[in-house]
């Protein structure tokens, strides 16, 4: 019994110990299951305070990175002058340690001017020089003129045609088949190369022909003339008449070529050289003009100072991403178009107020499930979710007051921004956010416990900017804010394509709308110019049939040309007499005299006149005689016609 009790006690003990072990294991598992961003029992995400070694390493990294070409404003005086503004200089001119000597000098030299200027976007001394301005605007004017020159034929074709009598077409082309000509070389550069090769080989006639071809096709390419096989040099010169100087040069060249082609002259080396010296300036002049137009653009585009990468500007984030990456943190741009955050992302950095509502809902949902989010400035969505906003103009004139932390050294953090956070609850309350940094009692950075995760909100985004990280201990503070390197850091903003759901919005956010529209217009103009059919090409329908009257008129013209008046009278007289007899005969054949009487009675004409007319018609019908084209015959026809109509004939 004792054994059984002992066994039972032992089993209970074992069960209890197993239970205890189980509970312990469960507790351990749960503790690991909590997102790493949460410290047990803490209302702030994990931070990574920098020790001495880390601080020294950070210092070296900063020195190296600010000396690089990406942050030219730090060491290049001209670039610094272009980029300095009130916000930047407010950061730079603090007593905190400076790492951008050029920017510090630029701000010191012109701060008074900046302060007096009411605009925060004030710039000074940014123009590279008067010559650069002239070149730039001159190049733009030339480019505009070139575009206009290209579009002019299209605009002319749109103009309404003058009110002139349209000439009929030239009629159908001759039906005689022509032998197809071999294709002719039309590339100007190739023709010039052929000419040079032929000249070097002593084939001067070929060289002359190639030079002539190069000149003609160059003029055609520049749309100064229309090149066609049936056009002569005289036609081309007439087309060039609006440009008399060019026409004179071209005329000289044409004359030289014609002397070889049709005249007594032989193609010689001297003639080739003479032609070469005449034609080359014309042909290459166009290339030179193009180069002159493009050159200022290339000059402006040269050099690191002309870099337009926004990440390299004073408020860019090149330094932040570089520092994080060098510390083993993967930094990735996220669009969040699918509404989900990548599994390996452990932290999000959300920029600006232009992030779309769809992205905000994704971010906040992710934070609620345990994610860590840092937001550079509050937005409407964030205000609704966390009841936090920013306000006012409260520039901080000294280093920020930081929340207590376990650091060996205190940090001097300078906030260039002029706003403060308006927090939802009074500080110190249970649901109140933790204030990370403040200035004169106003919160500048606060961390909210949101669901299972955390959202750290900054009042001003400038803290993360390049210039801000070069001042004081801002870089150390920011690195601490991001915490230890674990998982990827996702950057989210309108410039990352921040979750837009339509391609048009994505284009708009990327600033490409104007470019896409311009490309579309160029494409349309190109196809319009080339004459591409925008629909099914249709031939104009031919007039399949002619009116009977046209045939009659054609027949009449033939008669008239042949002077066959008598013949026409003979035919018409026979017809007219037949009709009159049918109309008045009442079935019985009428003699001429009787017919004349009936017709005279019906039409009111004098019987004698009718008789004379019918007699003449009868004679013509019986025996027309030789044709002399006498006008009297036509008059007889007209008179017969007048007899037919009043008596009820066809009109």
């Amino acid at each position: 019994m004792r054994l059984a009790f002992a066994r039972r006690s032992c089993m209970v003990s074992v069960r209890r110990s197993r239970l205890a072990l189980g509970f312990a294991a469960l507790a351990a598992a749960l503790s690991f299951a909590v997102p790493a961003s949460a410290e047990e029992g803490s209302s702030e995400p994990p931070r990574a305070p920098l020790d001495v070694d880390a601080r020294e390493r950070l210092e070296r990294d900063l020195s190296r990175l600010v000396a690089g070409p990406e942050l030219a404003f730090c060491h290049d005086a001209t670039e610094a002058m272009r980029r300095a503004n009130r916000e930047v200089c407010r950061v730079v001119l603090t007593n905190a340690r400076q790492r951008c000597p050029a920017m510090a000098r630029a701000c010191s030299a012109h701060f008074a001017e900046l302060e007096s200027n009411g605009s925060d976007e004030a710039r000074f001394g940014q123009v590279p020089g008067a010559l650069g301005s002239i070149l730039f605007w001159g190049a733009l004017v030339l480019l505009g003129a070139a575009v206009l020159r290209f579009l002019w034929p299209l605009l002319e074709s749109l103009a309404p045609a003058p009110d002139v009598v349209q000439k009929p077409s030239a009629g159908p082309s001759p039906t005689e088949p022509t032998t197809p000509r071999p294709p002719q070389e039309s590339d100007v550069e190739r023709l010039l190369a052929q000419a040079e090769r032929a000249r070097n080989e002593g084939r001067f006639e070929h060289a002359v022909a190639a030079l002539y071809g190069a000149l003609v096709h160059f003029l055609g390419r520049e749309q100064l003339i229309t090149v066609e096989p049936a056009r002569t040099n005289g036609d081309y010169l007439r087309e060039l008449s609006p440009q008399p100087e060019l026409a004179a040069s071209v005329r000289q060249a044409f004359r030289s070529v014609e002397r070889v082609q049709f005249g007594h002259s032989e193609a010689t080396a001297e003639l080739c050289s003479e032609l070469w010296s005449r034609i080359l300036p014309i042909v290459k002049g166009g290339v030179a003009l193009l180069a002159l137009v493009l050159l200022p653009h290339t000059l402006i585009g040269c050099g690191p100072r002309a870099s337009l990468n926004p990440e390299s500007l004073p408020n860019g984030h090149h330094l932040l991403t570089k520092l994080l990456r060098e510390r083993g943190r993967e930094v990735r741009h996220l669009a969040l178009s699918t509404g989900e955050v990548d599994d390996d992302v452990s932290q999000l950095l959300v920029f600006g107020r232009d992030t779309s509502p769809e992205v905000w809902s994704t971010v906040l949902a992710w934070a609620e499930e345990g994610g860590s989010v840092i937001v550079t400035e509050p937005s409407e969505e964030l205000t609704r979710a966390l009841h936090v906003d920013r306000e006012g103009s409260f520039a901080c004139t000294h280093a920020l007051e930081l929340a207590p932390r376990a650091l060996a050294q205190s940090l001097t953090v300078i906030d260039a921004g002029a706003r403060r956070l308006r927090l939802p609850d009074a500080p110190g309350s249970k649901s109140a956010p933790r204030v990370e940094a403040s200035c004169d009692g106003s919160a500048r950075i606060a961390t909210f416990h949101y669901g299972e995760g955390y959202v750290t909100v900054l009042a001003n985004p400038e803290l993360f900017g390049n210039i801000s990280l070069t001042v004081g201990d801002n870089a150390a503070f920011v690195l601490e804010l991001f915490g230890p390197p674990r998982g990827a850091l996702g950057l989210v903003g309108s410039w990352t394509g921040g979750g837009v759901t339509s391609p048009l919005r994505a284009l708009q956010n990327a600033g490409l709308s104007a470019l896409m529209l311009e490309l579309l217009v160029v494409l349309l103009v190109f196809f319009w110019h080339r004459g591409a059919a925008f629909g099914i090409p249709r031939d104009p329908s031919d007039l399949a049939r002619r009116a009977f009257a046209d045939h009659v008129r054609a027949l009449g013209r033939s008669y008239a040309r042949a002077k066959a008046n008598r013949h026409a009278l003979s035919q018409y007289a026979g017809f007219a007499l037949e009709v009159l007899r049918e109309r008045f005969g009442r079935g019985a054949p009428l003699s001429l005299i009787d017919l004349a009487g009936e017709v005279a009675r019906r039409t009111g004409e004098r019987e004698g006149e009718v008789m004379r007319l019918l007699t003449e018609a009868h004679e013509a019908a019986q025996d027309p005689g030789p044709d002399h084209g006498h006008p009297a015959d036509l008059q007889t026809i007209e008179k017969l016609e007048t007899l037919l109509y009043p008596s009820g004939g066809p009109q």
Partner: protein
Amino acid sequence: MNVEEVSATLKRLSAEIARVLVGQDTLIEHTLIGLLARGHLLIEGVPGLGKTLLVRCLGRVLGLSFRRIQFTPDLMPSDVTGSNVYSEAEGRFSFVPGPVFAQLVLADEINRAPAKTQSALLEAMQDRSVTVDGETRALPAPFLVLATQNPVESQGTYPLPEAQLDRFLLKLEVRHPTRQAEANMLKNYLAGFDPTDLGALTVLSSESHVLEMQRALGEVRVASEILDYITDIVQRTRSHPALTLGASPRASIALLCVARARALWEGRDFVTPDDVKSYAHAVLRHRLLLQPDAELEGTTADHCIDGILRDTVVPGTSA
């Protein structure tokens, strides 16, 4: 005379005539080229455009004899060629030359005379001689006939038959002068210009000079490609669907002669395709017969020639 001298002389002649005949530079050029090519001209234009004045000016500056024949329905052939007239005093017949015996003859409104009279002149143009009563008499050299037609009137006219039209080297259509030219003409008139008195015109040439210029035509080279070009153009008139009758080989010769004359005018000793193309209309338009249907549509000979020139490849082109 070399080519440059001929060209310079022609340009001077043209400028001198243009002092009086304002706004008809193309007509003057065509006329001088016709003279150079030893051909006769048919000028079509409404009255009042200066056709008679042109010929009179031409005669004056060239130093050639000039006669005008006004064609009327009752004009007889002998009125043109001349006839043998019995002289009672001498007791024999003597030939009285007609107005055709001049170096420049203006046959005004040639389509008003009957065919028999037209033929008398046309025969003289072709043969450059006149046969009266079995005796042939040569016409003077140079000999140029400028016949005119009024395109407006058709009543009481005797249009030249197509076969006879072929004898004219060029058919020129004279149009109204430009506004500026007409204004200048009025200013000349106000300044006292008298169209009947051409004494102000300078005589720049002579009979021998003109003959020498005509001989200079032989120095103008014609490449074989140009001959092919002329042949192509004329051949295409014979297969054109809008034409009943195309141009004859006489037209090819005419086009060749005129192209050479034009090359001389430009101061060249060789013919270019542009010389041929620029005179194709004047040479061919009166030698083509349109289909009635084409005529109904408003197609003209010039339209057909435009189409042929567009389809004929120019020699030496690189297109």
